[in-house]
C-alpha cells in the first residue's frame, strides 16, 4: 500500500476543510471497500480524513413522517433499527442481503452509497479498464461479462453498481444531504446520485470532489407491500447477479446497471393496467446482452413479476 497521512477530525466543517485543503485526500468511513482497493493499488489517496468520529450516527424521525439517517450509521444498526424494520422492511432486507455480519458492522450508510463496482477487470490492474484508467479500453465487453450491466451501459463501460442498500433507497424515493467543500448543504435524490457511464465511466457520482454525505432522508413509506429479492451464485455472502426492490407500486433493479435502476417504465405500465410480467418487460425492452449477461433479462423479469405479486398481497406491508 502506498504511504498516506491521516487525520481524524471531530466536526463536519473541519472534515470538509481537510479534504478540500489536500490534493489526493479522501474521506475514510468504514473502509471496507476503500482499504481493500488501496491494498490492490486501485485507490491511491495521499491523505485520509477519518470521518468515523463525526456526530453523524443518529437516526431521527422527520416532521414529514420519514426518517433522517446519519451517514455514519453502520449498515447493521440501520438494518436493525425498529422503525426501519417496521416501516421500511425493504431497506432492512436489502442491507442484510449484502456482505457479511463483520462487514455490515463496519460499513456505513454514506460509504455503502459510494462503494465501487466489483467488475473483475476494474479489480485487476493488469487489464485495461476505462473506469480505472480512462481511455485504456473495456476488457469486460468481450470478456467475462456474466455479471455486467444490461441497462444504461455504454461502449466504454458495462460495470454495475454493487450496492443492495441503494436499490432499496431508490425504490423508496430517498434523498441525501451532503456538505460541500465551501460548507454549503446540498440535497440530491439517491436516484440521481450515480451517473450512467457514457464516455466518462471514471466519473461515478454527481457529487463534487470534497462533498461529504451527511445524511440519507427517507420519505414516509408509501402504502403497499415491500419486498427485496436478490439472485446470486451462493446462498449467502455474495454480490447479486440481479436484485429487485418493490415498494408498493415503486420498483428498482440492482446489479443490472451502473446505478441503482428505478424502473419507471415498469411503474408506468402497472399504472396503465399491465400484468406484473408485462410491466417488468416494459423496462427491459431496451436491455442489452453482451454475450454472457443476457440471462439477466429473463431473470429480472421473473423476479420483478414475483416480487410485485407478493407485494400486492401485502407481504412486508
Amino acid at each position, binding site marked *: *500500500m502506498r*504511504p*498516506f*497521512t*491521516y487525520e*481524524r477530525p471531530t466536526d463536519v466543517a473541519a472534515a470538509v476543510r481537510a479534504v478540500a485543503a489536500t490534493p489526493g485526500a479522501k474521506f*475514510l468511513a468504514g*473502509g*471496507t471497500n476503500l*482499504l*481493500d482497493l488501496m*491494498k490492490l493499488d486501485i485507490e491511491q489517496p495521499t491523505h*485520509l480524513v*477519518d470521518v*468515523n468520529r463525526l456526530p453523524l450516527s443518529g437516526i431521527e424521525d422527520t416532521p414529514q413522517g420519514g426518517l433522517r439517517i446519519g451517514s455514519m450509521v453502520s449498515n*447493521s444498526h440501520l*438494518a*436493525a433499527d425498529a422503525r426501519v*424494520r*417496521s416501516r421500511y*422492511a425493504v431497506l*432492512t*432486507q436489502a442491507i*442484510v*442481503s449484502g*456482505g*457479511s*455480519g*463483520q*462487514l455490515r*458492522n*463496519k460499513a456505513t450508510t454514506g460509504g455503502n452509497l459510494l462503494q465501487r463496482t466489483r467488475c473483475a477487470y476494474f479489480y485487476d490492474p493488469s487489464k485495461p479498464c476505462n473506469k480505472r484508467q480512462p481511455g485504456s479500453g473495456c476488457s469486460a465487453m468481450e470478456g467475462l461479462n456474466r455479471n455486467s450491466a444490461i441497462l444504461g451501459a455504454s461502449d466504454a463501460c458495462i460495470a454495475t453498481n454493487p450496492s443492495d442498500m441503494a436499490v432499496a433507497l431508490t425504490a423508496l424515493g430517498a434523498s441525501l444531504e451532503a456538505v460541500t467543500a465551501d460548507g454549503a448543504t446540498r440535497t440530491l435524490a439517491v436516484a440521481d446520485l450515480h451517473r450512467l457511464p457514457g464516455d466518462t465511466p471514471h466519473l461515478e457520482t454527481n457529487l463534487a470532489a470534497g462533498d461529504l454525505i451527511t445524511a440519507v432522508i427517507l420519505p414516509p413509506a408509501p402504502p403497499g407491500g415491500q419486498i427485496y429479492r436478490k439472485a446470486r451464485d451462493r*446462498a*449467502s*455472502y455474495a454480490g447479486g447477479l440481479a436484485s429487485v426492490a418493490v415498494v408498493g407500486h415503486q420498483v428498482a433493479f440492482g446489479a443490472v446497471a451502473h446505478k441503482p435502476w428505478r424502473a419507471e417504465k415498469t411503474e408506468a405500465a402497472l399504472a396503465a393496467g399491465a400484468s406484473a410480467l408485462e410491466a417488468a418487460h416494459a423496462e427491459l425492452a431496451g436491455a442489452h446482452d453482451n454475450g454472457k449477461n443476457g440471462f439477466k433479462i429473463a431473470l429480472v423479469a421473473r423476479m420483478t413479476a414475483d416480487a410485485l405479486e407478493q407485494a400486492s398481497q401485502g407481504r412486508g406491508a
Partner: protein
Amino acid sequence: MKTTITVNGQARSLDLDTRTSLLDALREHLNLKGSKKGCDHGQCGACTVLVNGERINACLSLAVMHDGHEVTTIEGIGGEESLHPMQQAFLTQDAFQCGYCTPGQICSAVGMLKEAAENWPSWVTDDLDSAVALSDAEIRERMSGNICRCSAYPQIIAAIRDVVGDVA
C-alpha cells in the same frame, strides 16, 4: 502515528505507520498471533475480532482508526486455564480440522450471539417484528462471513448450537 488501543483489557500504546492494519498491529506489533491472516481482503473472516463488542474484519481496518477502542481477540476470549463456553463447544464438537479459521470462527460466533440477543435481523429472518430464534438456517446465514476450507461447517453449527442451548 501514536495510537493507544485497549487490547484484551490492557491499554497498549503503539507508534505505527498509518498503513498498519488492525490485524497487523495485533499480530506483528503486539505478538497476538491468534487472529489469522487468511485473505487479507475481508473475504474469509479468519481475522475476525471484537471492537467495542462488535465483530469486524481486522484486516480491513487501520489500527490508527481504533485509538481509544476496546479490542478483544481470541486470546482475550479465553485461554487454556479458562476456556470460553464457545471454545469448549468447538472442542467438544470437533468443530475444526486444520484450525486456521477457528479463532475467527469463535470470535465471530461470540459477536453473532450478541447480535442475535439484541434481536438484529438476518437475510433469513422471515418476521422482522418478532424475536429472532437461532435456527440452524439463522446460524449458517449469520456465520457466512467465516470460511472454513476444511469444511467443518456441520460441526461448527453444532458447537454454536450447544452454546445457544446453554444460554437459551
